[in-house]
């Protein structure tokens, strides 16, 4: 039983990570019908932004690991990620808004490769920053990392708490933002019909930028959570995580924020359960990514609209 709960928590924390990233895919897709393939890289940049914040703070504090570093790191990571996403939208995607659908997708791949290589080659060149060609240990922040917590005899990793708490807070914030604020309602309007929204006086360009920014902020939180949970970050981490998060978004029904959360959690659980309970040679950690992608393909065959999506996706 303890093993099962372990796997359950593992799956949930992994799933929450996917969910946080998947929201970015889903929000952008819902509004501009663009698969922002470079979103995984925003997640990675967020983690590096947080790390950089900590390093810069360390110059003043002598490398303090007190708890108050964490909110500052989160803000720093979010700032860097949002900035990257907004610049990316402005200079790469916006000019292609009416181009054939292949064009933005290829651009997205280009950006993704560019950002990865940029971090790999140049992050370590900044004086005082570690070389990013290999994995970098993420700073151990007091209270957020450290020994597992004993909850009624069950040892639970602190990172797990962090991720799940982050997801709950972000989800609540998103619900409030999308449903209760004027901007959020404008986002809904644009996703339903951009032309009519424009006629109603909504600045569609601004809404698109906000969608990118919201997605990037959540991805940055996920990036920090990844660092806290797994202890290190590297320039490649966005690729697989982004792919999985996209799978999660499709699983939940792309364009649907709740769907992204449900899809992310489901995917995380499936992955961790498949790794522990599939018997024989095809079980185990070595195959868990394969099962996640098999799930993606199965979903596309049997329920292309996803778990919660109502609309059949039909875009060439």
């Amino acid at each position: 039983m303890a093993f099962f709960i372990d796997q359950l928590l593992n799956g949930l924390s992994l799933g929450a990570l996917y969910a946080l990233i998947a929201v970015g895919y889903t929000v952008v897709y819902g509004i501009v019908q663009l698969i922002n393939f470079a979103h995984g890289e925003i997640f990675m940049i967020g983690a590096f932004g947080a790390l950089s914040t900590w390093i810069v703070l360390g110059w003043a504090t002598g490398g303090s690991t007190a708890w108050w570093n964490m909110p500052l790191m989160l803000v720093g990571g979010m700032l860097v990620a949002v900035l990257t996403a907004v610049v990316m939208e402005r200079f790469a995607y916006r000019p292609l808004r009416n181009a054939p659908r292949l064009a933005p997708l290829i651009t997205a791949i280009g950006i993704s490769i560019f950002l990865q290589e940029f971090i790999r080659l140049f992050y370590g060149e900044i004086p005082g920053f570690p070389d990013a060609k290999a994995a970098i240990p993420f700073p151990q922040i007091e209270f957020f990392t450290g020994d597992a917590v004993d909850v009624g005899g069950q040892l639970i990793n602190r990172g797990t708490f962090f991720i799940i708490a982050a997801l709950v807070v972000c989800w609540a914030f998103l619900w409030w933002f999308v449903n209760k604020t004027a901007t959020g309602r404008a986002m809904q309007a644009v996703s339903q019909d951009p032309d009519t929204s424009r006629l109603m006086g909504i600045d569609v360009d601004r809404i698109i930028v906000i969608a990118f920014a919201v997605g990037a902020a959540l991805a940055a939180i996920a990036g920090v959570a990844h660092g806290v949970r797994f202890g290190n970050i590297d320039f490649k981490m966005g690729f697989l995580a982004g792919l999985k998060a996209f799978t999660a978004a499709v699983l939940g029904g792309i364009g649907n924020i709740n769907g992204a959360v449900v899809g992310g959690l489901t995917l995380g659980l499936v992955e961790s359960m498949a790794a522990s309970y599939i018997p024989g040679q095809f079980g185990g950690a070595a195959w868990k990514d394969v099962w996640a992608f098999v799930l993606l393909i199965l979903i596309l065959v049997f329920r292309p609209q996803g778990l919660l999506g109502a609309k059949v996706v039909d875009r060439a």
Partner: protein
Amino acid sequence: MRIPTVFTPELQKQYHVTGRMVAMAGGLLFAVSAYLPWAYTGAALDNMSYLGGPSTLQFLGLTLGLIVAWCAAMGWIEPWADRRGFARPLIRVSKRVGWTRGSKAMGIGLLAYIVLILVVIAIELRGLVAVEWGGWVALVAALMAFVGTRLLIAGRAPSLERVRSAAWVEIVAIALILLLALLLVAYALNQNDGGIFLSIIAFAGALSAFVLRSGIGAWISEAGQKHRTVLVFSSFLVAFLFPFTQNGSDANMSIATQVLVFAATAVGLNIVVGLAGLLDLGYIAFLGAGAFTAATLSESAFATINWKPPFIVVMLIAGLISASLGLLIGSPTLRVSGDYLAIVTLAFGEIFRITMNNLDGQSGPNLTHGSSGIPAIPNLELFGFDFGKPHVVFGITLGRFSNYFFLMLLIMAVIVLVFTRLNHSRIGRGWVAIREDEKAAEAMGVNVFGLKLLAFAGGAFLAGFAGAVKAHVDVSVIPDQYVFLESAFLLAAVVLGGMGTVIGVILGATLLKLLPEKLRFVSEYRMLLFGLLMVVMMRFRPEGMIPNQRRALEFHSDDEELVQEIEEDLPYEFAEEKS
């Protein structure tokens, strides 16, 4: 992001005469400067330090300078030459050449060429001090040519392709161009200095920009269209002759063979992406499937399947396995959406890599020896011809890689044949229809699903084919050779070269593969540069270097000038019928 126009039409109207003089003077001065020393010592590039003895690169610069001067001069006599009435046929041809447009392109090319050379000199000899006075003269001359040509009025679009010329003229022209290309490539490849290599690329770039802008390119492509078979056969003949230019050295042949494998795969991918418009991000997996199939069925001591069919059979099996993987992945996803297909193929590529890594006997049945792969794949032996042994033909030794080069050339020919025949068939038109508007195509009775699946499986089959040979060329097959970055690299070749054309993709693949081999700094930054390149290409020239015209139209449907230009070009047969 609009670049402001410095050389406005008003400015051109006022100063075009001065501009022409300045351009001519600049071009001539540049040609003269080739005889001056450009660098302080002979250590940078090829020796540029002599007064009176131009090095090869300086000589290439001289040609460029003369072309600028000539173009500017020809533009000048354009208006009055026609009244005099001497040498009428020549003038009639000359009037159709876009001398001015060509000179503008050449002005930019000349400036880029000399700036590049000066930068390389400065880098190699540490500082601009190493540039001798001749180099500065050349720079000033290039600047004069640039500004001068900018001030010219572009005038009418060239229409050289409308000129009817005798068949032999066209065939000779094709042959000459191909021969020139062969010599240039052979010369460039023998340079181990990255700076020289880059300069030659710049020279070729400037020259082709001139050829394209001046309308000579259109004439050549028209001639190529008319004598398609001649063009295709002589291209292959030239490629076939390439190993004989290498004097028995196998170093360049190794690169050339890798380039061919890469290009063949890219052309295969171009069927899927360029013709059918399906974005396949896991294409490298099909190449890998072919390679692993060939490796496990090879005579290697590490091969895990104890059945050794002849290589022809292996190739077919490799192609079929790849094609069935394509069907497996394509059939569920082709029904939904283009974007989904891209991501699913990406996921499939990852599944393939992980699976090959896991089939090591521990996490799965032992098929591939996991991450260490299958080494020691023996050389091919076809019809008693051993690919591992050097052969002497006409006194020139052709080494191991030359043998594989010839084999790859054959496979390339098959792939190009498949590509062009499909492109011009009912199937190819169906693909284009699907790419442009799936719903309309379906309404017109095109079997959308079947054709998409055919493109997908067909592309996979060709990749499997190429993979089987790659296994033997590379000697070993390792899962980590078949990662996503390689797929992205292939896609970059297709995008850069031009979606939907064979020659463009071959050019793109060659450049992408050659540059990192010849330029050290490029191999470190290559992925960074190519990522950036993909973004920039999509922004400014999504149709690629050598575009398919129909494709270009799709990407620029709001650019009315271009639409008109292409529409004028496209129905060539109609234009002829009317007149």
